């Protein structure tokens, strides 16, 4: 585990040690982009930018997917962690609300049943 973490950190730091790669992350933080877009933005050849994206991808900072003939890059798992945290927070908020709603509804339901029984007597 520790070894795994160290390897991962090493990869992350190595990936971040290059100005172009930091630029690519910044760019992808604003919007997903294709390899072609990135090459144009950073004035590089397709092969050159692909190498950088490959390093970022192995470090888990970027993921890429190919749609048709275009390979699109986006921020990697780090962003997924954020997404999970978002869902957790959101779920907790609604869970707390619905727990209280349950209490209110159960109380009213029981009251109604009691009233019904009284009426029938």
């Amino acid at each position, binding site marked *: 585990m520790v070894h795994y973490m160290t390897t991962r950190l090493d990869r992350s730091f190595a990936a971040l040690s290059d100005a172009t790669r930091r630029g690519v992350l910044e760019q992808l933080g604003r919007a997903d982009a294709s390899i072609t877009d990135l090459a144009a933005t950073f004035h590089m050849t397709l092969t050159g930018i692909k190498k950088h994206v490959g390093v970022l991808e192995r470090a888990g900072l970027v993921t890429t997917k190919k749609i048709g003939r275009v390979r699109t890059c986006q921020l990697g798992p780090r962003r997924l962690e954020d*997404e999970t945290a*978002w*869902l957790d*927070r*959101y*779920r*907790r*908020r*609604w*869970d*707390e*609300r*619905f*727990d*209280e*709603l*349950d*209490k*209110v*509804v*159960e*109380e*009213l*339901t*029981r009251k*109604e049943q009691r009233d019904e029984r009284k009426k029938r007597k």
Partner: protein
Amino acid sequence: MNARSESEPGPVKNRTTVERTSDREVVVTRTINGPARIVFEAFTKAELFKRWWVPKSMPMTLLSCEIDARVGGKYRLVFDHDPEPVAFFGTYVEVQPYARLAWTNEEGGEGGPVTTVTFEEMGGKTLVVLRESHPSKESLDAAGTGAAEAMIETFDQLDELLVALAESAGR
């Protein structure tokens, strides 16, 4: 407070699920232990609504709650907050008794998120499906904490921090 400890056995707590169905939409589901008619009332009558709407972990007090659950009717929730109270408000756009509700959230201006709730009764229980549709991904991202609610929390945390700093400076 705990009414479940009465003679009737307490029902099992149901699960709340949340799913982001798209960049701009999130869906929450939960089964509530009671008929749709009563659940619908708890959503549309202010005196019931204010008993459950504020999440326990949120340091917020509901000062007032007005609900006019008719198509075109308005709602307005005002929360206590320093330096001034914060209001959440909007308009009901769909009202089908015991079945469906939809309202706009206008505190952030026009074209804000729309919340749609459906109530489906099954065997004396009600499946509540709540859908929040946002105008943009950014809007939904911000709602993760509840944009305005998060702001309140943030301010409260800032208050705590300032108090702590003042205390440590005074030492």
